[in-house]
């Protein structure tokens, strides 16, 4: 049993890319967790997609030994979509290493994450990283941390996770500053279910933080909220290689397996107790994560629907962060309506399905969850899919989710940021200047943000803006369903809910895009955007005039026939709608509106 005063539990938190995972690498290496040969860059980012994109998606925990102490390190993601991963990790710790890039300074997620950490009463150890960079300004950043966050940064460690400067100081600071956990080994078992995932060899692996009591191999445990009991068959920790232990004592972080087959059986935030000697009260648990962005996923080749179903189910087995239910679309056939934590999350799940499961997918426009109050007291409904919007005559009012967004941006781009937020129906709450940068807070409707806001933000500030948001609640809005008609038939997968004031511009843009994307046919094709029966924008694709092989003699017959047969293959990638063939690219590209202002 590790004595409490020899344990330190801490998370590494920071804005995206400020070097959390790289710092974790150095800490692991310095404490001997992995040899030089076993090391790779961002070793904890073990998913392919994490490696490729250079970002952390899932938090990871590692146990380190340092000068007679046991340190449990939790590396967290920086991106706002995965904020829930940060919050769970924070709940399992007593402190945090706040990493700030010496060249970039404090950014939106620096603030968001540090505030969360403060809410947990954490001891925060600031680390100014990347001091090896020529553009590093550690003293300026030190002042920024004090001024913007209000933390004492006089003892902030100056470090380079790249070159290894400051690593020992960081480890020493963790031991000296972060308080040891509290707990009672003799009390009934109480452990927090921090996370769970599926491992092909071990089955479901559960990450736990023991609060009271001792968690042992062979113990009969009970999940207090789920009410189920299980037999613990493995106890251990990650170094980051798996090390099997016989028990986990109070204050310790580690993993267990208990012959559980599906992640769905384990509720993150649940309390684990001894089935024979249960604790009286459960731990407070976590706020439930909710999907904020929804979209439809359809196989390009309708024959792949079963494959898609299997793949989504499998992916969901080890990633409970997204939701799915079956959806049928007149345009796209059978598919799934899926819920995500944000746009990056959506993109990542879609990409994993495409690559790990070899599927070609059509993704419909991302949409938020609307609340619709029906007339005649017929109640309320939640709308995840614009296609399901009731007839306007049945709608009393529509409510949409709003967020509070914090944007950090160099002064020179402030004007364009304000314009962008204003165009997106934003309400300015706050504007402050720190150094050469502005911090601006806006209230914005979420549906304006899922509609390419982030891309626009990046492009107008050349990547110099950082952005964080949280939902603040629902507000009534003058929202309408805009349908897109191709050859006079509504294409359900292209319909969207928009604010009345933006409908016309968006409708026009959509029609223009589709005009470019749908190939000419043997007849002319009208494309219209409409609200109810009223057409608000239109374009026409002229009939094709020429598609003919000028020369064709004896030698060309075979070639021509093969070409025709190849064309047949290509047609699988098209959806026929109102006798119009719509290439799947049109669905994808029409929804990426690009540089529309």
């Amino acid at each position, binding site marked *: 049993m590790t004595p409490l005063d020899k344990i330190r539990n801490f998370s590494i938190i920071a804005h995206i890319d400020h070097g959390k995972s790289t710092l974790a690498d150095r800490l692991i290496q310095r404490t001997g967790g992995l040899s030089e040969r076993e090391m790779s860059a961002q070793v904890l980012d073990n998913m392919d997609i994490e490696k490729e994109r250079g970002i952390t998606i899932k938090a990871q925990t590692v146990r380190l030994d340092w000068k007679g102490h046991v340190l449990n390190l939790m590396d967290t993601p920086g991106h706002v979509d995965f904020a829930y991963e940060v919050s769970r990790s924070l709940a399992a710790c007593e402190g945090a290493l706040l990493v700030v890039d010496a060249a970039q300074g404090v950014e939106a997620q620096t603030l968001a994450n540090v505030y969360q950490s403060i809410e947990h009463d954490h001891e925060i150890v600031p680390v100014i990283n990347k001091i090896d960079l020529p553009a590093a300004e550690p003293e300026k950043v030190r002042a920024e941390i004090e001024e913007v966050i209000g933390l004492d940064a006089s003892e902030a460690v100056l470090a380079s996770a790249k070159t290894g400067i400051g690593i020992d100081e960081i480890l020493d600071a963790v031991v000296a500053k972060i308080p040891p956990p509290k707990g009672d080994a003799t009390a009934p078992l109480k452990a927090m279910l921090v996370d769970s995932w599926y491992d092909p060899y071990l089955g479901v692996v559960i990450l736990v933080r023991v609060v009271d009591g001792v968690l042992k191999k062979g113990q009969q445990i009970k999940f207090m909220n789920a009410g189920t009991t299980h037999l613990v068959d493995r106890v251990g920790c990650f170094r980051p290689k798996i090390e099997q232990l016989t028990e986990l004592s109070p204050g310790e972080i580690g993993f267990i397996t208990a012959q559980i087959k599906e992640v769905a059986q384990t509720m993150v935030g649940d309390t684990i107790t001894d089935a024979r000697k249960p604790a009286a009260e459960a731990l407070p648990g976590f706020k439930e994560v909710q999907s904020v962005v929804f979209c439809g996923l359809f196989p390009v080749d309708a024959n792949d629907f079963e494959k898609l179903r299997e793949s989504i189910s499998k992916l969901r087995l080890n990633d409970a962060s997204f939701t799915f239910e079956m959806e049928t679309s007149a345009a796209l056939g059978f598919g799934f309506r899926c819920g995500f934590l944000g746009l990056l999350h959506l993109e990542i799940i879609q990409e994993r399905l495409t690559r790990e499961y070899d599927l070609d997918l059509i993704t419909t426009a991302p949409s938020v969850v609307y609340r619709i109050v029906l007339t005649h007291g017929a109640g309320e409904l939640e709308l995840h899919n614009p296609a399901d919007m009731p007839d306007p005559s049945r709608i009393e009012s529509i409510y949409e989710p709003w967020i509070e967004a914090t944007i950090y941006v160099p002064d020179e781009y402030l004007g364009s940021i304000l314009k962008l937020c204003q165009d997106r129906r934003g309400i300015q709450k706050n504007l402050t200047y720190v150094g050469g940068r502005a911090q601006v807070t806006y209230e914005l409707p979420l549906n304006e943000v899922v509609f390419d806001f982030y891309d626009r933000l990046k492009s107008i500030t050349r990547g110099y803006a950082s952005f964080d948001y949280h939902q603040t609640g629902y507000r009534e809005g003058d929202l309408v369903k805009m349908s897109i008609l191709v050859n006079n038939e509504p294409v359900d997968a292209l319909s969207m809910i928009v604010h009345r004031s933006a409908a016309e511009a968006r409708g026009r843009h959509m029609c223009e895009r589709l005009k470019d994307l749908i190939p000419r046919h*043997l*007849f002319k094709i009208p494309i219209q955007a409409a609200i109810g029966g009223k057409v608000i924008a239109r374009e026409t694709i002229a009939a*094709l*005039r*020429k*598609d*003919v*092989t*000028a*020369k*064709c*003699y*004896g*030698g060309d*017959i*075979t070639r*021509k*026939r093969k070409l*025709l*047969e190849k*064309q*047949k293959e290509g*047609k699988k990638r098209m959806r026929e709608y109102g*006798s119009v063939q719509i290439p799947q690219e049109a669905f994808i590209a029409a929804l990426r509106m690009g540089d529309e202002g």
Partner: protein
Amino acid sequence: MDAIITEPLALYIHWPFCVSKCPYCDFNSHVREGVDQAAWRAALLADLAHEAALLPGRTLGSIFFGGGTPSLMPPATVAALIEAAGRHWRFAGDIEITLEANPSSVEAARFADLAAAGVNRVSLGLQSLNDEALHFLGRAHGVEEGLAALATAQRHFGRVSFDLIYALPGQSGEAWEAELERAIGFGTGHLSLYQLTIEPGTRFATLAREGKLTPADPDFAADLFELTRERAAAAGLPAYEISNHARPGEESRHNLTYWRYGDYAGIGPGAHGRRGSRATLRHRKPENWLGAVQGSGHGIAGEDPLDAVTQAREAILMGLRLNEGLDLARVRAAGAGEAIDADAAARLERLGLIRREPARIVVREAGMLLLDRIAAELVGV
């Protein structure tokens, strides 16, 4: 099937050599320093004999010497091949023997000998009546030389046709109209009028990819096509196929065999053939073909049995090109009447692009330019 067997057979003979390669050409043509004429003659005769043995008892309706540049063949070789064909098969009384010729003075000098060898129709690769355009097309001859060759050809052969390429980059409607009127004025009974197409693998394709060549706008090209058909028809040379115009009775019988999906024997490098329900293909590279014939007595690289649906598709693809339309008996003969998508046919008819007759499907004037699309829809892809 029987009806088709009693139809005259067509014979295609490929001569793969050219003096230089044209930038728009994707045919099986090659530039070689010296050609062993005796060896080539012997090999062509052997390849012919081999094919003839597999197609016994047929009447030969046409012979076509294509290339490459068959006007570079020694006339004696041409004579020997015609003579041999006459021994293998029975010639139809009105047999058409065509040779593709370059309109150069060197080649024009051989026209008399070629006519004496039995060639009764030439197809001249004039390509343009504009020196600049000829240069752009990489042709070695000039307009004057070409027209002299045309005059010589008209003196020696009963039937003469020539090719023109139009819808060139930058070509105006007026310029083409004038060129076409002039072409018609030479009084040949047949004209092949092709729009320039950029074929994959040609030098033009590379230039187009690099942005150094901008093909004509397809809608403008469509206007030119309509104008061409109108003018030629008014002058008594209506189109009988997408790009081919003739005075009635002057159509290329040989090419009609392809479009009507009759049997044709193909010999020489890269030549294709249809022998009953089999597709035949000769070795493409001249040296490989020659080696194959010398080694095994024939140049066949492969034979592909075509199933009913495939044959029907081929018949459709070819037949629709003709003004007379697709003979549905051809499709039925293949044993795959269902190869035509009836719904698509009805839809295309409603759009005014085709006409359905009891025995034929005819692409209407409005549909001719959309033929590839129409064919694709009709075969249900």
